[in-house]
Structure formats: structure tokens, C-alpha cells
């Protein structure tokens, strides 16, 4: 599968995620891609630098033919705004188990919607892991996802990086969705 097809699946997957979140929550939720680009592993952290540290990230490992690693990352302030928009309740100072499970579910729905689109277009079967919410410096989050797929120092194929815009309850929250396909998943990586 070519990298451009992955890009198309991210776009369609995010829109599908908005519809799925709306159905689940019983309120309109929009999820839109603002910009999608390919970024080399070494450049990912710089490309995501607009997120204020530390970040709240949902990490999901994906097994299967087009597997890889997925991250949905928010600045701490954005994650609280999104939780409040989706639940109607302002989170406490630190995110508790409930607030973290809201973020995990948003990550789960977003990533699995993308995987659904990939599956529909390619017939591939993928299996996402249990989503894990990590609050850490961006470098730690990115390093962990990369290390799961590549040997140290190996740049690997490009990450797909998408700025995603969530809108709910009159709020607009930006996040970064990053997907690192396992090298064997991608045919020709021109980035």
C-alpha cells in the first residue's frame, strides 16, 4: 500500500470518527483533518512542537498487515477542554481515571475509525491494542512509539502527521494524530 493511500485513510477516518463520537455521545461532535503531512521520524518532535509540554497522548499499538503505532496527542490544556466539551463537566486539576478514560475512548474511536477505512479499502485485518493514556514530555511519548517498531537509530518510514480539529459543545480543540506504519506495511516511501 502506498503512503498516499494511508493519507487518504486518515482523512476519511477522522470524519468517520466525528460521526461515531456524535452517535455515542448523543451530541454533535465534528472531527476534521486540518493538514496531513509526512514527517521523518527524526523530525516528528519538531513538527509537533506547537503542543505545549507535557502532552497528554493516547498510544495504541496496531497489529496486523497494515499495523504500526498510533498517537493522538493533546496539550494538557486542550485535553481538559475536550473532556469538558464531551462530558459537560470541568475536570479537576489533574486528570482522574474517568477523564483519562474519556481521552482513551476518543483516541480509540479516532484510531479505529482510521483502521476501519484502511480495512474497507484494502481488506486488511488489524487489531488495535488497549489504548493507553500517557502524560509525559513529547520526546518520551514519540520515542516509545518509535522504539516499538524500529531499531535504535533507524529512521524508518515516515510518520503520517495530521492536525485534527475536534468541535463539540461550542468548543474547538486541536490535537495531533500521528501514525507510524510498520516498514513492511508501506510500498515506497517518498518522504
Amino acid at each position, binding site marked *: 500500500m502506498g503512503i498516499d493511500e494511508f493519507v487518504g485513510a486518515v482523512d476519511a477516518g477522522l470524519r468517520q470518527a466525528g460521526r461515531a463520537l456524535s452517535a455515542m455521545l448523543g451530541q454533535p461532535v465534528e472531527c476534521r483533518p486540518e493538514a496531513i503531512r509526512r514527517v521523518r521520524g527524526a523530525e516528528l518532535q519538531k513538527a509537533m512542537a506547537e503542543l505545549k509540554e507535557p502532552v497528554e497522548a493516547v498510544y495504541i499499538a496496531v497489529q496486523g498487515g497494515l499495523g504500526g503505532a498510533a498517537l493522538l496527542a493533546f496539550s494538557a490544556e486542550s485535553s481538559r477542554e475536550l473532556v469538558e466539551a464531551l462530558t459537560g463537566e470541568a475536570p479537576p486539576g489533574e486528570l482522574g481515571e474517568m477523564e483519562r*478514560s474519556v481521552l*482513551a475512548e476518543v483516541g*480509540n474511536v479516532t484510531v479505529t475509525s482510521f483502521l476501519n477505512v484502511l480495512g474497507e479499502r484494502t481488506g486488511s485485518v488489524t*487489531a*488495535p491494542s488497549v489504548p493507553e493514556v500517557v502524560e509525559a514530555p513529547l520526546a518520551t511519548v514519540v520515542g516509545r512509539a518509535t522504539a516499538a517498531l524500529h531499531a535504535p537509530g533507524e529512521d524508518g518510514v515516515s510518520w503520517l502527521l495530521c492536525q485534527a480539529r475536534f468541535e463539540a459543545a461550542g468548543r474547538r480543540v486541536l490535537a495531533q494524530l500521528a501514525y507510524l506504519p510498520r516498514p513492511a506495511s508501506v510500498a515506497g516511501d517518498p518522504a
Partner: protein
Amino acid sequence: MSRVLVVDDSQFVRLRTAKLLREHGHEVLEASNGREALEVYRRERPDLVLLDITMPEMDGLTALREILAADAGARVVMCTALAQKATVLEAIKVGAKDFLVKPFEPERVLQSVERWGSPR
């Protein structure tokens, strides 16, 4: 009214699902993984289990087998975040009654509970 065991590692999903079912008159039990689900099932013998597939400690497919080993008449509806055809087909083959694709549409959840959760 049915007694429904909701099994999901996401507290948020359990909360949303339990709220929906209680609003429609059902009694709800909760478990956050397959191992806990098995314990609650053995103790409470609910009318229906809504069982997530992807969970830590013990996944849904393993939990399904264990629950059916404990009670061959158990009624279990699998919940999957993806349309994982192979896994869903295996679950149905093992003995699940139905499956729900997450995120849940409330009407679909209620329909499945109405269909499979009649009191025993």
C-alpha cells in the same frame, strides 16, 4: 427488566452504557476486564453480558470461553471497537449471541438487550 453485566476496561464506556440501561429500567453490574467479569458472572448469574473484546488481563474472547464453561446457557453479546470480522465470527462460533460495534448507538444496545436479556 434485565440484569446486565457490562464489561469494558473504559470507565467512561461503562458509565455511558450503565446510564443508558438504567434509564430504561435495567439493573447493571460492571466489570473492567475479563477476569473480573468471570468472577462477577459466577457470583451474580446475570441475564446478559455485554463483553468488550479488547481488554487487559483477560481479553473478551477468552472471557467468553470461560463464562460459557461456567454456564453453558450464558447469554453474551460481544462488543468490538472495530468491525473485526474474524474475531467476531470466532466469538459467534464459540457461542456469543450477537455483537455490537463500538462506539455504541443507544438504540442498537437497547435492541440487543431486549432480544437477548430476558430474565431467566
